[in-house]
């Protein structure tokens, strides 16, 4: 069974007390999602992998020095992001980074619905594209963190540079938007069928 926040706090405590096994639990659980997050900040696969490696090495090495066992997941995501941004800046890859907190968060969405009708599929993707284009990279990042991690609004806010309330509002606004747009889209789908 997946662990919840409290369980991860326990794992982190064990790790800080010198439990090396706890370390591997943490790695096993979070390496994949950290990669999924990092690869949207930069498409440089090797860079993301290096950052993950550095992240875990530093956790291990400095574990004694960490005074505050902040919530583990938050520490991982925030540190990874900071490190990636720092490394990108050094590499001079993206000059469009103006603010540490605002990265060009890439959004590749899954066209998961296998539709028998390529036309309606096209329409669906078009509608999606319109919606997602209106969502800034910062907000896309926030949506990812909301639905792919166990972080709360305050923690997400810290990472993306928004207030907790603002994050929450944005999540709900996006969902409302989706409902409205899909209302439209369904209507046009209907029209197509009539024409046939």
């Amino acid at each position, binding site marked *: *069974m*997946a662990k*919840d926040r409290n369980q991860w706090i326990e794992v982190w405590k064990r790790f800080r007390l010198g*439990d*090396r*096994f706890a*370390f*591997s*639990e943490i*790695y*096993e659980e979070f*390496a*994949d999602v950290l*990669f*999924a997050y990092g*690869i*949207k900040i930069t498409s440089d*696969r090797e860079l993301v*992998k290096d950052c*993950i*490696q550095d992240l*875990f*090495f530093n956790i*291990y*090495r400095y574990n004694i020095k960490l005074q505050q066992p902040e919530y583990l997941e938050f520490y991982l995501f925030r540190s990874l992001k900071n490190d990636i941004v720092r490394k990108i800046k050094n590499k001079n890859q993206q000059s469009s980074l103006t603010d540490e907190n605002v990265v060009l968060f890439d*959004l*590749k*969405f*899954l066209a*998961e*619905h296998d539709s028998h009708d390529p036309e309606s599929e096209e329409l669906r993707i078009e509608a*999606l594209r319109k*919606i997602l284009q209106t969502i800034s990279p910062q907000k896309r990042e926030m*949506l*990812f963190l909301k*639905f*792919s991690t*166990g972080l709360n609004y305050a923690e997400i806010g810290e990472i993306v540079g928004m207030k907790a309330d603002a994050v929450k509002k944005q*999540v*709900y606004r*996006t*969902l*409302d938007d*989706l*409902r409205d747009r*899909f209302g439209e889209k369904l209507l046009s789908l209907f029209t197509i069928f009539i024409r046939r």
Partner: protein
Amino acid sequence: MAFYDQKYIENPMFTDWVFRPNPLLDRHWEKYLLNHPEEEAQILELKSRLLELKYADETLLPEEKIEIAEHVIDRIEYEDENQKRRTIVLSLMKYAAVAVIFAVIGGLVVYLKSDNESVYKQMAGQIVQIPSEGKGPVLITASGENLNLKKTSSSVDYTKTGTVVLNNDSVLKTFAEDSKAMNQLIIPYGNQSKLMLADNTVVWLNAGSRLVYPTAFTGKTREVLLFGEAYFEVAKNAEKPFIVKTSDIQIKVLGTHFNVSAYAEDKVIQTVLQEGSVELSKNDAGIFGERIIMKPNQMASFSKTTSETALSNVDASYYILWTKGLLSFDEVDFDRILKKVERFYNISVDFSEPTFRAIRISGKLDLKGTREEVLEYLEKVSSTKIKKLNENQYIVNK
């Protein structure tokens, strides 16, 4: 803003189900929808909206995930070496091929934890390497020394005077260490070993197995951890039950002879009792968990997939023939026998046709023979041809 939206979005169980479904979550929400049909429309609609936000994640390949972890270990080792510290346990994920690679990184010291389930998981995750000089079994002592046992059939005896005798030959003195630290005896493929524990229990370890045990049994029980296959002749001690822990189940005995086959790659854990009495339970059972008491000449087959145990009557001596270098089988899948032969000779055998795996065969093998003799015999009883591809690889053909 729909109330329903909020209720579900803030529920990790819901969002996990939408974005990372698994059978348990599917079942939970199926049931919920059945019990709350009035919410079905909302839930499904919200789910489809959320799915629009689902990413086509780029993920780490399993090899990449392992590679990163290995690099982390290398750096930590390097650091430790520089600071003259003995590097200790670093366990990795369970899908590292533990059965095939045994690698020791520096010295290895294992600490017994109070949370027993995680001890096993941790042990299962270790990557343990055989030092390049030796090819035989390796004993890793509680103080972190690696000892190569060199012979393909070796023995390790823990005596009452606090010494350890290796191969009836060299003697090690064990020091008063941390009573919680454990030893590990690692038997790579192609080897076997016999071990006598401090309480006079004798353990035969089969190829591809690992036993974790303390130097002395202090405490209320005598506990060991087994990966792979072992035959135990447990010394009687009514006051201190002997418990063998495997990945999923534990076997508690008072004094008896029994065989456990608990290889990580097998889907079933088989326990065969020759004489005495044992009690099986699942690892996380707790005080009220189900317990199964076995009688001599019974076999308990625990299925890792269903978590169920089936009891059957067998001839126990069949199952412990391997300790004498013999393997007897009656209407057993070809696949299963070949797996044992693979481990014993440290070879790899593939099937040109998947259907060959399920051919039922009967016979008796003398594993003291050469691998060619053994494979020839298997060809006969299975009506197939086993062709040699290179030094250690074979393939089964018509």
